[in-house]
């Protein structure tokens, strides 16, 4: 009887826990967003748009799950998600998955629609009326900023109702200058007529998404030099960091590292340059390595990551976070064995054909993720002075390779009057944690495994710093002597051989003469 009672208690406890756990999960995962697109239309560069949108969402601390409509399964969109984003990349195709359309209509969370083909229920949620515009060119305006958009064939505009919020204005080129709203937010529903990956339209898109998902903030952009590798022209890095230091510009560098040959002078020089960067107030993001198209394993990647961290910190170079192309966050192996060791990410635009290892399109978010955006993409805007950055943004400049490019970069930096993000005064605290080591950055100070580390300043002339201290093998002299002895021996043998051949040939001749 006692046993039965015990069992009853156990079963009921189990059942209670069964009911409780899901609610816990729901509570902790309220930053999930489902992104469903109609097609990865290559003609319109949709992959780039999707990548940009994914990175922007990551920077808003949202975990985005991306699904092609053809792979959407019934019931996938549920209360687990904070919101859903529909992206139409191919107007002629549009949404055809009825399961998604009906699930979305039932969904009560935040809804954002990007592109054409609005459904009736969506139009209703957005305020009630739309109009189609054909074959025109617009100026996109917001406060003092303005940008000329490329010519469009068709575009759907949602008319603003009184309670709806408008973001950006589209102004026609004609003399009568008609105005249309660009982005619209109506309570939990949002709309963007298209998704552009650069300039003012991108800034406004981000602002709209941020407001819709209640993630909006004001951030100062982080100046970041990208495409730095151990193979780069170190003089350029040194020059740039010195220039920034002199002009009071705080900056970051995103660089890859090597896991082999770290005993070579070339690596010493590389790390010396990075130490100079650190001592000049720059912070370093460890950039993800290139992925090959064959033979990749997660263990190898995490081993390499540990090697990078260990070898760099042995040379007093302490990365504050990791940087990678956007697709690294869409790949299970690449994400868990690289990105997730750090709590600060810098996500850069993906290349056109990324090498996935195990693509899962299930992006994770992190304490802070900088949205990488090239500085040149802002050049289209007429007035960059008071751009609002509503998410953590890194404005990137690729490391120049020639003196001419270097001068251009310096000129560009002079012209821009951004208030750059300063890691020290803005109190950046970061952490990189691998199973074997822990690197921390707090207000300009570096800590390795909990111990405070002073970064020593390197000499300005890098080449003189490292002498040619070749290790001299003790036996090398012996082998050298031995080699000489052998050489002489062989020469003597060859001479004797030649003499013998000469003699032998004579003997043979004599024999033959006698025969004749």
């Amino acid at each position, binding site marked *: 009887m006692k046993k039965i009672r015990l069992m009853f208690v156990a079963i009921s406890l189990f059942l209670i826990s069964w009911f409780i756990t899901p609610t816990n999960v729901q509570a902790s995962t309220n930053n999930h967003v489902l992104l469903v697109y109609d097609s990865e239309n290559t003609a319109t560069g949709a992959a780039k748009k999707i990548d940009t949108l994914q990175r922007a969402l990551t920077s808003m601390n949202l975990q985005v799950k991306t699904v092609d409509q053809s792979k959407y399964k019934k019931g996938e969109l549920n209360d687990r998600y904070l919101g859903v984003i529909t992206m139409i990349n191919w107007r002629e195709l549009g949404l055809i998955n009825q399961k998604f359309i009906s699930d979305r209509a039932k969904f009560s969370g935040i809804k954002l629609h990007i592109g054409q083909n609005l459904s009736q229920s969506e139009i209703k949620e957005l305020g009630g009326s739309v109009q189609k515009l054909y074959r025109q060119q617009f100026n996109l305006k917001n406060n003092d900023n303005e940008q000329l958009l490329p010519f469009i064939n068709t575009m759907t505009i949602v008319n603003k109702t009184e309670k709806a919020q408008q973001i950006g204005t589209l102004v026609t080129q004609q003399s009568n200058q008609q105005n249309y709203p660009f982005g619209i937010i109506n309570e939990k529903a949002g709309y963007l007529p298209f998704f552009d990956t650069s300039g003012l339209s991108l800034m406004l898109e981000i602002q709209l998404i941020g407001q819709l998902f209640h993630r909006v903030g004001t951030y100062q952009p982080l100046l970041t030099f990208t495409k730095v590798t151990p*193979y780069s022209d170190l003089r350029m890095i040194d020059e740039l960091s010195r220039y920034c230091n002199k002009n009071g510009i705080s900056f970051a560098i995103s660089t890859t590292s*090597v896991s*082999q040959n770290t005993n*070579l*002078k070339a690596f010493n020089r590389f790390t010396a340059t990075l130490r100079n960067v650190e001592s000049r107030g720059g912070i370093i993001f460890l950039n993800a390595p*290139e992925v090959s198209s064959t033979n990749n394993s997660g263990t190898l990647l995490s081993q*390499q990551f540990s090697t990078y961290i260990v070898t760099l910190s042995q040379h007093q170079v302490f990365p504050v976070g990791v940087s990678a192309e956007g697709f690294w966050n869409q790949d299970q192996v690449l994400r868990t064995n690289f990105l997730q060791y750090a709590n600060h990410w810098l996500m850069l635009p993906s290349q056109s054909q990324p090498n996935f290892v195990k693509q899962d399109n299930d992006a994770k978010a992190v304490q802070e993720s900088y949205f990488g955006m090239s500085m040149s993409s802002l050049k289209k805007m007429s007035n960059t002075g008071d751009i609002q950055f509503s998410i953590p943004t890194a404005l990137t400049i690729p490391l120049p390779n020639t003196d001419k490019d270097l001068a251009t970069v310096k000129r560009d930096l002079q012209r821009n009057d951004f208030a750059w993000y300063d890691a020290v005064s803005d109190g950046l605290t970061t952490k990189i944690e691998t199973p074997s080591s822990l690197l921390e950055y707090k207000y300009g100070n570096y800590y390795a495994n909990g111990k405070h580390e002073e970064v020593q300043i390197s000499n300005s002339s890098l080449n003189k710093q490292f002498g040619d201290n070749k290790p001299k093998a003790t036996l090398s002299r012996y082998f050298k002597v031995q080699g000489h002895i052998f050489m002489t021996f062989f020469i003597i043998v*060859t001479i004797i051989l030649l003499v013998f051949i000469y003699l032998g040939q004579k003997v043979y001749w004599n*024999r033959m003469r006698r025969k004749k």
Partner: protein
Amino acid sequence: MKNKFRTGFVHFSKVISPAMLATILVGIICGIILFIPPINGLADSGDFYNTLLSNGLYRFSTHYNQYNDFVIKKFGILQYYNENHFYTVSSQMIFVRLAVFLNKLFYSKTVFDIRFMGLVNSSFYLGGIYLLTKSLVTPIRKIKNYIIALLVVLIFGDAAYILFFNSFYSEAQMLIFTVYLFAAIMSLARNIYQRHWPMIGVFFLNAILLVTTKPASASLTISLILISIGLLFLPDFKARRMAIIFGSLLIFMAGTGIYLSASPETRDANNFESFAHGVLLDNSDPTTQVEKGGINGQFALSRGDNYYIGSYTAIKPSGKYVRKNLLRKNGIGWVTRYYLGNPKQLFQLLNVAASNITSIQPANIGNYPRGSGHKALSRYKYFMIYSSMVRFFYPGKYAFDCLMALSATMCYAVGGYLDIKGHRYHGILRFFLVLGLMVAVVYIPIYTIVTAGASDLAQRLFMVGTSLNLTFLLFITDILNHTLWHTDGKVGDDD
């Protein structure tokens, strides 16, 4: 008893010639290695890609790694238009296309079995073995001639060679062409056939096919032209000297053609390997050495890297930055100048190369198919008496190779000189043959180090080992035939 043996041998020799004996034995070995399950061959180290692509074949996708571990038995045959039809052109295509044709005829139109490659390769090879043995022993059928035949089997029936046949490595074809052209020259030298022109044709055909097996084979052009010089000394041949010169010209053109046909990508890859696996393989720190040559010293960090990255790397060697800052600068001229300034390093690398000459069976490549009960990368161990003996005893020093080459050349120069004096051509043809082979022995390691560094040495030096083996065979044959110094067969013929 002795008489019984003698009559038995006489009967035997009447039925089976030495050439026939060698062919049958090599045929049996080929059969056992290539066709009796579990079949043996060579796994893909990544080199099959080009061949598969340009011959309308493809790999079936699998969940496991297809490289290095196991021999792959089955490939797919493309059913529709192949856009990479002539991605690379080489004489290997003839063999592969023939194998695919036979496969379609007798086996399947959609699945290609690697054994058809083995079948085509070994059929041609057996013909070559027959001609080779015949060219060395005919017309006599004494015991020593049978010993020569067995020596042919020992050296060229070695599994290290035969394993190549069940693969898409072009070394299989290189071996076949080399055996044919060697046999052609020796047949001409020893006057085996009444008319000369068929064997001259065989020589030029195989020489041209040999240089066109792959772009790297272009380096054999010099050797082959040297060998063909010997043909100019054939008697009653004045009218056809022009033909010989024309033939040599064809070899030269084929060599240049195949060299130029290498895709820019292949050239970049070789360039990179010659740097990362050659120039940078300095015992001390190469950083400053490289910088002296005008290349960013940071590229020293690519020491030991491969052009086709295997996993994760800081920079893509095929990317724009490396191409502009390294590969456009470090051409053959740059590398040559570097080694002239660092001769010690060059000799170190040449010794590394020399130690690889004897390893004809590629290292770290499996010889068994998956599911045969053997582990990944396991190697075939039978019929390898000769290659394992050579690997054990042959000293891996470049200086020793040079000495060997020098002594062999001098040795045969004596015969050549005597024959010029005696108005015979056996020794002259033979001398130029040995000269050509020995030039290859000396020259190919240097060429390889300069153009591709110390990567894939076993494969790139395949012809060096084969040349040495052929010369060794010739040497033993000449000693047994008493024709080392005198070719007229009279002096010293004490049998």
